[in-house]
């Protein structure tokens, strides 16, 4: 199965977009008019509005030959809450599929408009839309089309309508808690909760929950490492300045040696700052993305539990209705016709619920396989980039200091 890569390097991203992914076949290397493709990019963040109401808007460029789309190219302006709308709609419609994760709603106020944060968010949003566009089912979503094509006013209207149906984070939280509290329920002697009894699925759930913890910790340290690089860069720069001044005081060849040391320190300080940024973008962010993906899976797990419960409940209800119907038949009740109608409705509903549930199970099985493969790839790339950066930095450091040695030798000879 051909994997859609989710590369983090912008260059690679653009390459990927150009090649695109077909609805049901191998992705072509170069887009031609016959093979269907859908390629999206999120660019050009611009701050709009004033004060508390200020926000960032993004340019979303769609290149496609899908017949339903206004092609070949369309550009719209979207903001973060539009992406949230899309995510929520997809989550509702495509149960069982792991919806690509969104970057978090921003935290600290003053950080909200820092260049780095904006870039990180843009990258994450770009990834989000691209993953949807490359997913063979999700890419066919009507909501996606609206998101990519609708005029801004339409988008605003759609967004406003959502608020009622939108699953608030607190609702999701509750679902998670339900999933996790089944053990305590049994212990407390509550009525046996309606849960699947598939051991493989149990294992998967346990894996997902544990994985999130481990990943979160790794990501935390990765973030700290970014800070450490910045701090080291700063103190090396300060040290360099101090040493240069000391050199000026000393004068003659010793002074010169100090001066050279100071210069090298400042050069290396810049490299450290650069590396810090690289680590943030190419290592920490992918880890963060991994965490978010796992959280998205947890949402799907909750959805599945919901669906299972619903299916069970409906099955129960249908059984009861059957019994009731029999009774009515025996007594030749006037309400028989109505009861029969209700029964059939319920039966349909129950069958639907079962279908939904089974579809979720099927989809999840596919998704999990795809997910694992994808993550191995993503992490492999992230590790590679990180190691590359560290090796490059270390070599630069060695080189810079090494170049100083002959000068130091010359000083002591003098």
């Amino acid at each position, binding site marked *: 199965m051909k994997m859609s890569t989710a590369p983090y390097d912008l*260059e*690679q991203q653009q390459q990927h977009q150009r090649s695109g992914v077909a609805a049901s076949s191998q992705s072509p290397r170069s887009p031609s008019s016959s093979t269907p493709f859908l390629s999206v990019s999120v660019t050009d963040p611009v701050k709009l509005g004033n004060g508390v109401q200020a926000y960032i808007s993004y340019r979303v460029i769609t290149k496609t030959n899908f017949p339903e789309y206004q092609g070949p190219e369309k550009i719209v302006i979207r903001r973060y809450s539009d992406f949230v709308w899309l995510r929520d709609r997809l989550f509702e419609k495509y149960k069982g599929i792991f919806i690509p994760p969104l970057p978090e709603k921003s935290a600290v106020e003053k950080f909200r408009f820092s260049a780095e944060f904006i870039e990180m968010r843009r990258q994450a949003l770009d990834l989000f839309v691209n993953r949807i566009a490359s997913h063979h089912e999700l890419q066919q979503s009507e909501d996606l089309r609206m998101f990519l094509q609708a005029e801004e006013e339409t988008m605003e209207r759609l967004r406003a309508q959502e608020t009622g149906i939108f699953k608030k984070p607190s609702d999701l939280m509750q679902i998670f808690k339900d999933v996790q509290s089944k053990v305590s329920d049994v212990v407390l002697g509550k009525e046996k909760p309606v849960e699947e009894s598939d051991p*493989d699925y149990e*294992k*998967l759930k*346990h*894996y997902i929950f*544990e*994985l999130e913890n*481990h*990943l979160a*910790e*790794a990501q*935390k*340290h*990765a973030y*700290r*490492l970014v*800070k*450490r690089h910045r*701090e*080291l860069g700063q*103190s*090396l720069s*300060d*040290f360099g*300045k*101090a*040493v240069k*001044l*000391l050199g*000026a*005081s*000393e004068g003659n060849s*010793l002074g010169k*040696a100090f001066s050279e*040391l100071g210069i090298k320190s400042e050069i290396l300080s810049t490299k450290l700052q650069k590396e810090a940024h690289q680590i943030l973008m190419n290592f920490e962010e992918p880890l963060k993305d991994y965490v978010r993906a796992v959280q998205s899976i947890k949402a799907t797990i909750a959805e599945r539990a919901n669906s299972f419960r619903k299916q069970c409940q409906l099955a129960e209800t249908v059984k009861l209705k059957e019994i009731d119907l029999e009774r009515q038949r025996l007594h030749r009740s006037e309400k028989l016709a109505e009861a029969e109608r209700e029964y059939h409705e319920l039966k349909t509903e129950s069958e639907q619920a079962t279908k939904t549930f089974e579809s979720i199970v099927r989809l999840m099985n596919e998704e999990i396989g795809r997910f*694992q*493969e994808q*993550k*191995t*790839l993503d*992490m*492999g*790339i992230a*590790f*590679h980039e990180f*190691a*590359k950066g*560290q*090796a490059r930095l*270390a*070599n630069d450091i*060695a080189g810079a*200091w*090494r170049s*100083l*040695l*002959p000068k*130091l030798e010359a000083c002591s000879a003098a």
Partner: protein
Amino acid sequence: MMGSENQSSEVSEPTEQMHNLVLHDEHDNDNNDHNGDDPLGIKSYSNYRSAMSTLSDTHHPLADTDPLLSPPSPRRHHFPDTSSYIDPPSYNDAVFTPFNGAASSVDSPSGSSDSPSFSGSRSPTSEYIKITVSNPIKEQENSNSIVPSGNSYVTYLITTRTNVPEFGGNEFGVRRRFRDVVTLSDRLAESYRGFFIPPRPDKSIVESQVMQKQEFVEQRRVALEKYLRRLAAHPDVASRMLDGAARLPKQLMGESVIGPQEVVQPAKGGRDFMRLFKELKQSMANDWGGSKPPVVEEDKEFLEKKERIQELEQQITNASTQAESLVKAQQDMGETMGELGLAFIKLTKFENEEAVMNTQRVRATDMKGLATAAVKASRFYRELNAQTVKHLDTLHEYLGLMLAVHGAFSDRSSALLTVQTLLSELSTLQSRAEKLEVASSRVFGGDKSRMRKLEELQDTIKVTEDAKNVAIREYERIKENNKSELERLDRERRTDFLNMLKGYVVSQVGYAEKIANVWTKVVEDTGGYVKEST
């Protein structure tokens, strides 16, 4: 010549003061005490002597060789040619804190403190003095009272290995307490005026509770060792250590001349309030008086050097502070890298345990590679940091030395002040004598009382003359000391700083190479993930 009106009222005062000065001198001589902190001169003498001497006490020689003390190890001599700069891993020197669980850690704490790069590097000959301070033991102060005095103190074992002939032996050890070292330091300050004598460790006003704490004792032990080693590194102090022990106390016991000997020591810190007052008056006159003092600091070269030193001190202070934050940043880097590695090790274990698909095992392998690299890199960062601390410590050392420089400069200015004061004194006395002579010559047949006064005055003048001469000699001596010490400081500082730079740079190169290697392996191992860009 000063106006006579002004003089007449002042005449009587200085005379009395001079009397007091002389009398006081005589008294002082008997007491032989100049420091005020040691009422029994004899006790302090013996303390001093024993603190200095390493002769009479015999003790066990060092059991095993401390690698850090071996003759200046050519850490600095790993130069160009080869691509790798560091090995022998100065793992011995590294202060390595093993972290929990995880990868194998080499646990090699350094026992004694590391010698700063300079004390070993300068000896041009094969002579050496190696001092170690170890083995702190709590002891009770002997008290004959029934009630236990509760005064306990700590003694340290001071072991010396040397081939300097004057010491008359190869290895010896003595037990001393901190107070002994204070005495030593005070004696040195007295006898080495004008020299840059390294400052001793601070006295801390601590309760016995704190004193017993491991940490405090250990800190003090380290500080004492550094101090004694620095002393041993000072060419004049080291070679005259024993000499001084023998000779100085005799001087203090007033074997020779009376009053004038006084002037060898500065007035401050002594009990000689009269002299203190006079010199204070003189310094006021210097600062505020209309006329120039009789002798001034004329040495332009010295003044320039002094300014330079002050500027230098500022820069060293600044660099020393920045060096400290650099060290902290390096340390933090190492720690966080290690924590990252640990987190990935846990992830690896987790994935392996829970793996359902093969891709998970593949991922686990990748994670393990990253984790291993991170843990190794973390270790290298910490080792590098230990080296950095050692090298950049030179900056801190020189800061300490600046204190000594200030001390030497103030020796000079107080000696100058003494000379100025005596000169003023002398001229005052002489003019008074002249007046007396004139006055008494007018009286027919001589003025008995005036004659007597004149004689006394002339005696005083003679004593003051002698004192003045001694003071001038002392001042010149101190000036010479300052000069030679400044030259020595420049020479040694240059060497020490260059060595510091070299050491720092070499260790940076060495460890950066090692770290690069570690990550390069991961790059190779994960190379397959990156698609070649067309």
